[in-house]
Each structure stands twice: as structure tokens, then as C-alpha cells.
């Protein structure tokens, strides 16, 4: 091999080195790129030759917005329904663990006939399934209180991928889940050893153990080498870095389903096991900090529901006085981000534009006022209000903050 390989490597290496340039992004970071930032006349210079790994155009800088515990997807920079894997939102409870796929194991035990340990290659041998669905954090609304707020700030804790793996029902059959098992514990191997209790029915219906995301191995930030995937349910239940499933006849009442991921509701009650994500939508264009011009504006955005397909999306361009039907881009999938568009002629007057999602159960995305009226001002998770963009006379689009009352 050596001679041919060496020569090939040399050639590739030589070409790659010649094409590599260090450029400064608009964010001020020095990044290595294969493509020069500004070619004087691209028809007069031979560009970089094929390489082992692609890059974004140096003119494009989509970035997650990170805090200590999460990072948000730049919804306003995306065009379709699939979130590029490196822009998928993150929420970790103790950082991203480094897991060797060769020593990875998934233990399934408890109320089963055959407690079993599966290696990653075992999981990959089972019949596989792919599914496109969103994953959304139930804390995906941060009570924005100023105009300079982007779609990423409002609800960037939702992302969508094509996930590939094995149906959990296949594994349930493999280990022989006992009829009296009604819940299962899913446990991660991160430093939080993150755990949630899940009704067994969800496991039989549509849960998956997934090892691939958008055609390649899952990213470490999304649970490499394998995670649970519960379509339509609050993201933290889709336990990442999954190491153990314990079948049981009741919930374990872990910290993440008692003192966290629960929300105060009316009459002093605290609502628990609020798994399903209610229908929601967001206009991603035009949105802050975009400035529009008088004339035709295509309003674009995403709508999704944890209860099924999006039935329709309605757009108001007059602050909610009247609503019109937006066009839905196919595919319109079950529990999936759905892209919508609405062509609007802006006459130059100050106005508010907003969208609301209606899912196939007939649920209509509520206003913040309706949510607070139903749950009280001290409520927390699962806030999915209609949000408005204020279009000012000069075309500047800003978020319209709402009173929390």
C-alpha cells in the first residue's frame, strides 16, 4: 500500500495545505478554512481541490448561543426543517461526557424476563428505523423583556434531525418486558447520571434508541454513541448517553421529574410528568434584527406539535385582528418542525406580525395571556405563546415584549 498511499496522501496533503487559510470571522474568531474569504475574481484562480471534510462558506457564520447549561439554535439562519447537527441546541446537566463506542453498553433489566447488556454493535444489528422529528426543551421560552430579541433567543431550544436507530419495542421484545411493568427508568452516563421515568406505553409506541443523526453518528452533544428518543415529548426525557433502562411498576421520582421539569399551576398545584410539547410556531423571517422594505415580504417560519402533525398555520399582519392561512411546505410530518410561508405586501405602516400553529388535534397555539390565565403567573415550563414582531415605520423589525401578568 505504502508507495501509492504515500503519494496520494502527499498530493492531497499538499493540495489541502495550499488551500488552507486562516481567516477572521465576523465574530472575531480566527478559523481555519479551505476557501479564501474573498476571491478577487474566482474565474482567474484555481480553487481548493477536493478534501476529506467539507466546510461552510467563510461568509456564513451561524452560531449557537451558549450559556453554562444550554445553547440555542440560530433558527433565523436556517431555511429548511433539518437543523445542521453542529447547530442542534444543547441542554446538559453536567457537561458532555466522552464515551468510547467500543466499550459502550446499554443494560436493560428490572421487570424483564432476560436482563441483557447490548453493545453498540449489537444495537446496530437490529432492524433499523429512521424518523424525522423535533426535540424541544420544555424550558424553551425565556420571558424575553426587550425589543432586541431574535428567534434564537425566544425559542432556540428546539431543533430537528433525521434520527436512525432501533425501535425500543424491538428491544422490549428481545428482553421480554413483563406485563406488570408500567414505567421504565432511562439513565444517562453523563456526570449528572441524568434519569427520567417514562411510561412503558411510550416505549412500545414510538420510542427509539438512536445512534445516528442526519446520516452520521450522533454528535457527542446530542448523546453519542446512543440516546433515547421520545418523539413529541420534552427534550430532557430523551436521555442522552443512555446506559441503562430499568423496567418498573412505578416512577422513580427522580430529581428531574419532581423538583425540576415540573410547573406550578392553578390552586397551588405542581404539575408533574408534563411530557407532551404543545403546538407552537415562530416567524423566523422577518425578525429582529432584519430591516424590511416596503412591498412584498415573504413571511417564513417553523411550526410543530408534540401531539401530531401541523394542520395549519395562521398569520396575522395586523396585530391579531385578522388571520390568514400560511402555505405549508411538504413534508408535513408527525411531531416535526414544519416550514411555513406567507406572502405579505407591506404598505409601510407600523404593524405587528404573528403566527399561530393549529395541530391535527384542533389545538390552537395560545397567547401568553391565555397561558397565564390557565396556569397562574408563577407557572414555568411548557410556555408556547404566540409571539409578535413589531414592524416599525422604517422597516426595522423588533420583538414585541409582553407584560408577564
Amino acid at each position, binding site marked *: 500500500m505504502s508507495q501509492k498511499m504515500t503519494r496520494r496522501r502527499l498530493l492531497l496533503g499538499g493540495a489541502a495545505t495550499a488551500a488552507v487559510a486562516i481567516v477572521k470571522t465576523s465574530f472575531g474568531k480566527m478559523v481555519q478554512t479551505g476557501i479564501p474569504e474573498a476571491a478577487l475574481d474566482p474565474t482567474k484562480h484555481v480553487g481548493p481541490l477536493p478534501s476529506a471534510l467539507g466546510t461552510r462558506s467563510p461568509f456564513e457564520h451561524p452560531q449557537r448561543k451558549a450559556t453554562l447549561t444550554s445553547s440555542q439554535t440560530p433558527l433565523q439562519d436556517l431555511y429548511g426543517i433539518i437543523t445542521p447537527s453542529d447547530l442542534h441546541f444543547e441542554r446538559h446537566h453536567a457537561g458532555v461526557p466522552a464515551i468510547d463506542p467500543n466499550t459502550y453498553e446499554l443494560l436493560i433489566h428490572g421487570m424483564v424476563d432476560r436482563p*441483557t447488556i447490548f453493545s453498540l454493535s449489537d444495537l446496530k444489528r437490529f*432492524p433499523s428505523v429512521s424518523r424525522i422529528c423535533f426535540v424541544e426543551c420544555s424550558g424553551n421560552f425565556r420571558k424575553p423583556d426587550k425589543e432586541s430579541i431574535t428567534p434564537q433567543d425566544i425559542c432556540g431550544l428546539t431543533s430537528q434531525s433525521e434520527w436512525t436507530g432501533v425501535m425500543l419495542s424491538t428491544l422490549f421484545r428481545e428482553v421480554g418486558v413483563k406485563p406488570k411493568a408500567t414505567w421504565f427508568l432511562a439513565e444517562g452516563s453523563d456526570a*449528572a447520571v441524568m*434519569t427520567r421515568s417514562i411510561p412503558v406505553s411510550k416505549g412500545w409506541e414510538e420510542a427509539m434508541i438512536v445512534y445516528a443523526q442526519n446520516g452520521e453518528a450522533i454528535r457527542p452533544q446530542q448523546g453519542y454513541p446512543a440516546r433515547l428518543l421520545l418523539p413529541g415529548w420534552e427534550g430532557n426525557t430523551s436521555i442522552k448517553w443512555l446506559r441503562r433502562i430499568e423496567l418498573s411498576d412505578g416512577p422513580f421520582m427522580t430529581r428531574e421529574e419532581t423538583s425540576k421539569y415540573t410547573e406550578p399551576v392553578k390552586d397551588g398545584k*405542581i404539575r*408533574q*410528568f408534563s411530557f407532551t410539547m404543545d403546538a407552537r410556531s415562530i416567524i423566523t423571517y422577518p425578525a429582529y434584527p432584519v430591516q424590511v422594505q416596503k412591498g412584498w415580504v415573504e413571511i417564513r417560519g417553523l411550526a410543530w406539535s408534540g401531539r401530531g402533525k401541523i394542520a395549519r398555520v395562521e398569520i396575522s399582519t395586523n396585530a391579531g385582528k385578522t388571520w390568514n392561512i400560511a402555505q405549508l411546505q411538504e413534508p408535513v410530518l408527525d411531531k416535526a418542525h414544519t416550514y411555513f410561508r406567507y406572502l405579505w405586501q407591506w404598505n409601510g405602516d407600523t404593524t405587528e406580525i404573528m403566527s399561530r400553529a393549529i*395541530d391535527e388535534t384542533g*389545538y390552537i397555539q395560545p397567547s401568553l395571556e391565555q397561558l397565564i390565565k390557565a396556569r397562574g403567573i408563577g407557572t414555568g415550563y411548557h410556555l408556547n405563546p404566540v409571539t409578535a414582531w413589531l414592524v416599525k415605520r422604517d422597516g426595522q423589525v423588533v420583538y414585541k415584549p409582553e407584560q408577564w401578568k
Partner: protein
Amino acid sequence: MFKLRMPYWACVAGIAMSSCEQRADAVPIHFGYGRAATANEIAGKAIAIPPSGIGLPPGNGTVQQGAVVYASKCAACHGVTGVEGPFNILVAPDTANAIPFDRAPKRVKSIGNYWPYATTVFDYVRRAMPYNAPGSLSDEEVYSVTAWLLYANKLIDTTTIINAKTLPAIVMPARKYYVTDNRKGGNGPYE
């Protein structure tokens, strides 16, 4: 959906179909992948403690010993008395029966007023704390720091010993407020 040949044993057992010829929807119940988990392997990993307390290890914890553990391993993040932070406040500033959370957006949620089960304290501390060295406390230390946290939240007195028997018996004052999700979708009233 899957193109799989029906295995011999499934034919003998008469499962799912009467013929052993290839059929598009034939999926075996068992593939035989994976290996049997031993009791030791399970015991080493099955650390979750449900409200019944099943699975709690031997040992005892005291408030006094817990105060020592808390001061050296927890106070830097959670504050000297559990209320100072900078990270999660562990000691409730009020009782579970103070003004309801749905009417008090700024009310601090903590062990004394927002944790429905005492077993969760043990489970969570043992699996995830201290943040900079998770899983480093002995079971006795976890029992003790659990005892101190319950004491600091005025849920037990200084003489209560916390162990596999006493911990599940503690009734947390917030528990009565917990309800299971009742949202249903559809066009009914918002929940």
C-alpha cells in the same frame, strides 16, 4: 417492513405465522443479540432509589456528620447555610404551605417546599454531587448530608438517624401539591 426469514424455532413455536417462507412483515421476537447481564453487573449499576426506598444501601447518617460533609463538600456552591448560593438554593426560605407558587413567580423552590420525596435527595446527591466530583461520597456521607439537608429545611430534628428504613418514611410537605399532567390537546380549555 423488514425482510427477514422466519427462524426455525419460531416456526416450531407457531409464532406469528403458519408458514416458514419469507414474508415481508415477519419479524422475529428474539434476535439473540446482546449478552445476559449478571446479577453483579446489575447491582453495580442499578443505583436509582424510588419512593419505596427499595435499593437503599446499608448504613446510617446523622445531622452532625452531615453538617461536616456539607461544609467541606457542598457549601462552596450552595452557601454556608444552604440559602446563599451562588448555585441552587437547597434550604427553603418558607414552608410548603406559604403563598402558592402559581401566585408567587419569585418564590424560591427548594427541598423544604418543592421536593415531594425525601428519597430523591439521597438518589440525586449520590448520583450527581458534588458537581466537581460526582459519585465520590460514601453511602454514609450521602445519608448524612441528606440528614443535614432535611434538618436545615426543618423536616427532621437533630437526633433523627437517616437510613434505609427512616428515609422513605419521611412525608415531604410539598408532596400533596403534586398532580399528574392533564393536558390533552384539542380545542378544549387551555390547561
